[in-house]
């Protein structure tokens, strides 16, 4: 996208949102967009198949997650979302 550009705020001022990534595997249809889109490579395909015959996402690099929320926003199936850590675990 020509509209995308580098953020203006310097790295030091960035706030990282502490979140857990929760998934609802039986809803996932395996489009893979959350995995491909994650800017920090937090997710990968689960080797196990779900009921739709798809590989849902699993968290593989939890420490990298910055809580950007893109996986939740881009998922067409309401199958992945983030939960703020102070709200309790997934």
């Amino acid at each position, binding site marked *: *996208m*020509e*509209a995308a550009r580098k953020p203006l705020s310097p790295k030091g001022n960035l706030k990282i949102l502490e979140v*857990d*990534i*929760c*998934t*609802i595997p*039986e*809803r996932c*249809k*395996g*489009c*893979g*967009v959350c995995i*491909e*889109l994650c800017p920090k490579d937090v997710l990968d395909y689960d080797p196990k198949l779900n009921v*739709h015959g*798809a590989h849902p996402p699993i*968290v593989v690099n939890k420490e990298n997650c910055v809580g950007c929320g*893109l996986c*939740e*926003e*881009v*998922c*067409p*199936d*309401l*199958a992945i*979302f983030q*939960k703020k850590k102070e709200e309790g675990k*997934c």
Partner: protein
Amino acid sequence: MIQETHPLERFTRKGMIPHIWCAGCGNGVILSELLRALVELKIDLNKVAVVSGIGCIGRISGYVNLDGFHTTHGRAIAFAVGLKAARPDIKVIVVSGDGDLFAIGGNHFIHAARRNIDMTVICSNNFNYGMTGGQAGPTTMPDNRTTTTPYGNIEHPFNLVHLAAGSGAVYVARWTTAHVRRIRESIKTALTKKGFTFVEIISPCPEQYGRRNRMGEPIDQFNWLREKSVVQHFSDPVKAEVGPNKVVVGEFVDIEKPEYTESLRRQMMTVQGTLEKEGRLTSAPL
């Protein structure tokens, strides 16, 4: 991770999710962003009606936990016009597909836009009739293959932004399902603005259109939309093309015009006021 409740769960009808849409279908993104837009606007959800037509996206009125109606093919806008004119207090949202809104329903679209009746029309444009197996439609791109253009599409597609602008819509925007946050912001603008507002959302159809035109996996189509789209706010709607190498997105029209239900009510008050002043019971005795 244990089972959890998705933040949008309570805005969907119980037992209707998971939806019927294919893996990577853009309709799921439209569903989520519509719900997020409504939640962020803090609209009274008891006063919203979602009207949809026939097609994959047409199932959306069954998925959202709001007053909903699933009409016959092409007639979502006509239903919505009747509902809005009779009940201006209800926020009416039409969500339907490119074929439903612009082929069979084209007449209703242009007239509702012409009237500038207060409603928001969201078009999921996936370039074909997906539900029935992937036939060509009014937005199918030239030379592309569908089940009814096995040798390639020889027709010219509509430029929906141009059509909406030309018909008189007061707000016209186009985004793709790769622009999740922009979709939400445009829907919010469209919902708050009084008058006929239109948001076109380019949506991948991996199973039908995408497969037949070798557009790849859902993520490949997503990347196409991400990489080939160009934001050109308020550029000439005529030049807002959609093609394999360029998808012009942005907001194109944002104008003010008298709105139909307001003009109607004003006229009604004038008529009744005149009768009261003249002490008459009707302006047309039998």
